């Protein structure tokens, strides 16, 4: 009897030990799989074998319309070119996409290739999660075909970790009927003209959602502010410089005069809603014009952001396509990334409002003839990128914390910006 039970106990203990051993060895495996050298070897050596068919996993956050276009038009083009490589396109919801990608780094279950937000590219690269595409021989030539601004968002420590996939920026969305009430026909050419007209109205004419970077940078830049030096190395002397303080002061004045409202500060109506009835203008990306015929028929048009002191400004958005370091088929994934940035694909996706990133398409007929896309392409010329930094999330927080202090709690502009600039210096270094 005892022997039997002893054996049972022994087996049980072995099982426990065994499982614990499995636990401790598992992370080691993950380490080995994700060694950066390993991926580079793959890049350097074998050209992708044509024999074995395989699958590439592609993550994206396309909406319904874009996904349809991608599946029905773009994928068949790829399948014709590379019948041996199946693309498994996985649509992720936009809400927690960044968090999903971070998690996938930890679990080693990343996609082979993904469409990622331009602002996160540097952070993923700094974590060692992406393949440096500039190591490929043909990259040097490829590089010159892209628009400067979108391309630069892939840069991290001298290497390019992705290709620009689509671009966008904010432009002015205008309710022409309300503008008319203000005495302006169509879109105002200058901000000065608009302010003079809206000052007397007594209710808010211009709306922005919140105090975050994407919301306030266009205004900040438009009114003459600057975040850092050109090389993005220092914020002190720029973010807290006289021009920047004046820019914030201009916004505060407009806010006090009831020209300009910040939804999250004043509790005012959301712009997508209020533009139909109360606001004359707000700045938004091209997705607002998803079904632009309908918007235009309601008298809501797109225009470049009116100039202030003779200068327009906006913020660049958009996505890059990046190859993940954990991919077993980095060469094929790079091939797919190049395919996605080819003229034919860029034009196909443009039909659904994904603005192209190729120099060759800036003056393309389809773009120029469209009443909305043409505006956004023109606006891109005066649009600036956010600070490309692996610390993007923290920088974003410094900015919105400072703006909350100023706009909500009425803190002193100069003092707040000086403190913010010092914090930002630490994050840029």
């Amino acid at each position, binding site marked *: 009897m005892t022997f039997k039970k002893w054996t049972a106990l022994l087996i049980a203990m072995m099982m426990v030990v065994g499982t614990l051993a499995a636990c401790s060895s598992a992370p080691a495996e993950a380490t080995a799989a994700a060694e950066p050298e390993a991926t580079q070897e793959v890049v350097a050596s074998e050209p992708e074998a044509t024999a074995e068919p395989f699958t590439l996993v592609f993550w994206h956050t396309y909406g319904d319309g874009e996904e349809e276009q991608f599946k029905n038009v773009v994928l068949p083009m790829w399948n014709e070119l590379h019948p041996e490589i199946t693309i498994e396109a996985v649509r992720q*919801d936009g809400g927690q996409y960044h968090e999903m990608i971070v998690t996938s780094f930890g679990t080693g279950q990343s996609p082979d290739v993904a469409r990622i937000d331009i602002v996160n590219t540097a952070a993923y690269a700094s974590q060692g999660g992406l393949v440096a595409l500039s190591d490929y021989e043909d990259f040097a030539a490829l590089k010159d075909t892209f628009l400067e601004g979108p391309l630069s968002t892939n840069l991290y420590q001298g290497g390019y970790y992705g290709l620009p996939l689509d671009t966008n920026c904010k432009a002015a969305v205008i309710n022409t009927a309300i503008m008319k009430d203000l005495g302006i026909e169509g879109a105002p050419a200058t901000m000065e003209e608009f302010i003079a007209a809206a000052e007397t109205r007594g209710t808010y004419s211009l709306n922005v959602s919140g105090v975050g970077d994407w919301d306030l940078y266009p205004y900040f830049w438009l009114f003459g502010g600057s975040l850092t030096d050109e090389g993005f190395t220092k914020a002190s002397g720029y973010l807290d410089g006289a021009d920047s303080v004046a820019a914030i002061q201009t916004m505060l004045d407009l806010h006090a005069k009831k020209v300009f409202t910040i939804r999250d500060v004043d509790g005012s109506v959301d712009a997508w809603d209020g533009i139909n009835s109360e606001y004359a203008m707000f700045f938004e990306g091209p997705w607002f014009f998803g079904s632009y015929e309908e918007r235009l028929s309601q008298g809501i048009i797109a225009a470049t952001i009116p100039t202030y002191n003779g200068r327009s400004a906006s913020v660049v958005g958009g996505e890059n396509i990046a190859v993940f370091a954990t991919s077993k088929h980095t060469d094929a994934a790079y091939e797919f990334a190049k395919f996605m940035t080819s003229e034919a694909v860029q034009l196909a996706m443009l039909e659904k409002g994904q603005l192209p990133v190729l120099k060759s398409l800036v003056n393309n007929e389809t773009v120029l003839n469209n009443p909305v896309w043409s505006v956004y392409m023109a606006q891109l010329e005066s649009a600036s990128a956010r600070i490309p930094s692996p610390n993007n999330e923290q920088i974003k927080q410094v900015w919105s914390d400072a703006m909350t202090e100023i706009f909500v709690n009425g803190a002193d502009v100069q003092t707040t910006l000086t403190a913010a600039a010092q914090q930002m210096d630490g994050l840029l270094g």
Partner: protein
Amino acid sequence: MKRNLRGKKAGDTIAQVVIWTILAVSLIIFSVPFLFMITNSFEQFSFVLPYPPKLIPTQLDFSAYKYVLSQPFFPTAVKNSVINTSITVVLSVFISTLSAYGFARIEFPGRETLFKIYLFTLMVPSFLNIIPQFIILKGIHIPGTDMNLIGTRAGLILVYVATNVCGHTFFLRNFFRGLPDALSESVIVDGGGHGAIFFKVMLPLSKPAIGTMSIFALQGFWEEYFTAKVLVGANESMMTLPLLLQRLHGQYATRWEWVFAASILALIPVVTLFILFQKKMVIGGLTQGSVKE
């Protein structure tokens, strides 16, 4: 005497009316969010919210429901949610019932320490566990193939079951402790062991308690989002209702009527189950113990 009785009866009626009124008013206030949800699921917003906000439905427009039901992944999501939830509930309740019996009725060295550890795990935030859990799933290979459990239903269910063992064990252990010893003694007299006691005495006796806990557990698994997102989020054929709901949310702006319609559709099964089983639920014996020990 007679008058006194009548007076008492009248007093009772008044008391009933008062209680009824208090409860009814409270319930109406409590229901505002639901009313709001139902009303607005019958609207057509296209990103514009109605003014004034509507609390009472003014129209019965089912187009939001039609939209949700016509989503290509809706049937898949329903199927997956039903399958995942049912298997998870059965497995986790069975394993937890076994554990609870072990902790409640069998003496073994280290029992209290082990149980304290179980309790402690209930207090530790579970978000960060997802990465090591994932690594373990990756290490478990499906026999006969070179596939591991990531992205599979089995993997998801395994994690669901495992992460709920501690809580369910705690819940059921107290119930087993409350059952009189005399019952199991009769089995022992007949020469039966713990297995016999468990299957012949404990299980039949604790059916209502187990049922109650199953209902509680079911609600939790039905709405689970985070783990499903991480473990099977890259596999659209594994989509569940909470994942679909999140997708309807939209990237730039919310179509509230879709979200609300989908929410109501997802709610119907759990509410129905609760209404059907609420009379049979027993909780009394389950809550007698305490976390301390």
